[in-house]
């Protein structure tokens, strides 16, 4: 049933500046790319991608940006939150050699997919992009999976100087991949989509309310519900969505440019 289940936070881990991971007991099956609705009682309920998937324990990783994430950031081990889900379609994980491009907290969404493809004997290159060095996270965790990690920072404080997309475009010229999976700022993902012809999947983020396909708040293009038809969309679908990378809608349903 689509109603929050109350659970205690098992662990809180600092990942980088303003970024934390919270884990909790959640024995249900969750696939890479799916998301939960996380209820912070008295504050808000927000969508959040799964960032770690173990048998009984699942995790989310987030940056302190608004009221809800700031409240979540303050919570400690044993504090109670409500969880419903998992929601959404998840990534299609096919191909022998996959390029992952994560911008900002987007890498949190990609991490479970990286682990999955490695387990299935595929190889992967992961680009982790951030504004600056102290906002990078998951580098060690992904290295342990045995994939190639490439770092980009906007200010050049670590790795390639520039955006994750710039770096991805360089790599795509030099190396052949079977597909590109990305999560990050939508403008960045659109540039990446426009610059490649290989199979492409992107994880989209929209303001959500019901998460079960009723309210219409997260709809894009011709009635595609990010909560149910997404949050992962393939390149072909995204090329037909005029709003992709251009605008989102605020909680009143007004168009807001990225």
């Amino acid at each position, binding site marked *: 049933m689509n109603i929050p289940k109350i659970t205690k936070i098992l662990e809180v881990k600092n990942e980088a500046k303003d970024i934390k991971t919270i884990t909790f007991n959640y024995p249900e099956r969750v696939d890479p790319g799916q998301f939960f609705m996380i209820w912070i009682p008295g504050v*808000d309920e927000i969508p959040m991608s799964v960032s770690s998937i173990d048998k009984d324990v699942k995790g989310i990783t987030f940056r302190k940006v608004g009221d809800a994430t700031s409240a979540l950031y303050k919570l400690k081990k044993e504090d109670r939150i409500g969880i419903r889900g998992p929601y959404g379609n998840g990534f299609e994980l096919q191909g022998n050699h996959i390029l992952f491009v994560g911008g900002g907290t987007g890498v949190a969404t990609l991490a479970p997919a990286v682990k999955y493809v490695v387990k299935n004997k595929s190889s992967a290159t992961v680009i982790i992009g951030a504004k600056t060095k102290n906002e990078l996270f998951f580098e060690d965790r992904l290295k342990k999976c045995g994939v190639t990690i490439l770092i980009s920072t906007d200010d050049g404080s670590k790795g390639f100087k520039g955006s994750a997309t710039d770096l991805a475009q360089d790599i795509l010229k030099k190396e052949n991949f079977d597909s590109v999976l990305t999560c990050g700022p939508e403008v960045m993902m659109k540039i990446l989509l426009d610059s490649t012809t290989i199979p492409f999947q992107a994880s989209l983020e929209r303001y959500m309310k019901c998460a079960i*396909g009723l309210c219409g*708040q997260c709809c894009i293009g011709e009635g595609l519900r990010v909560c149910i038809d997404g949050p992962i969309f393939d390149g072909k679908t995204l090329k037909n969505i005029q709003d992709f990378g251009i605008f989102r809608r605020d909680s*009143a*349903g007004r168009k807001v440019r990225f």
Partner: protein
Amino acid sequence: MLPLADISTNIGSLPLKNPTMLASGIMDEDAGSMKRIIKCGAGAIVTKSIGLQPREGYPNPTLIELEYGILNAMGLPNPGIDEFGEEILQLKKSKTPIIGSIYGANAKEFIELGQKMEDYGVSAIELNLSCPHAKKYGLEVGYDPKLIQIITSSVKVNVKIPVFVKLSPNVTNISEIAKAAESGNADTIVAINSVKAMKIDLDLKRPILSNKIGGYSGRAIKPIGVRCVYEIAEHVDIPIIGVGGILSGEDAIEYMMAGASAIQIGAGVYYRELDIFKKIKKEIEQWMDKHSYKKISDIVGVAHL
């Protein structure tokens, strides 16, 4: 075998290819979503309720599933009438009627909203006088027969298109309120809006919805809706649109027998996916063929003994 039954219907002067309409509040805040629902077979679309100013609605949780229905308190989120025009204009070529739902605090606001909707080109207006969870709006206006009559007649003299009035079951006198709408020259009554309800989480010892109180819809409220439509039909001569817990063709038929000329679907989209409109159309046709009914109007109100 092709169905013999003709499922077209008329809501007063407004003809519908089929009696399944999208209820206000579901996938109807932007043109793209409404286009998708039209492709799923809806006979008409009712838009999200639109007010004069943009409104963000309540913080989440705004919607949860309960055992026998859906509980929500969205809080009337909408982009405001001026920005919403762009969405309606994109649907101009649609052959499926678009009905503009509006909410206001008084007659003056309803008039302005109604006139703007008419200018955008909608086929009819639905007055939301029944939202159970918004301060100053909806039910807070719509519990009073006198106010209903004033608002309805004020909108009526200022627009040419049909005016529907959507009523709440959260009153003790729904037929009196329906009569007030009729005396204000309403073209159609829509019944019912959701039923006031609450869900408390036992672990946290607090209501789950941020607004605490919400509106209950889905399977659980169908008997309430059928009763309301039946009572209203005994007291008014204008057409009625039935809404509340319709998940199947037989549910739709039941509302028709109570007196509804058409029906609206909301929570059903969750229970039977977006193509519930096609599914219910087919089920209505099959039921009519099996019971030798040739047209919808032969079913409307037959349960009134």
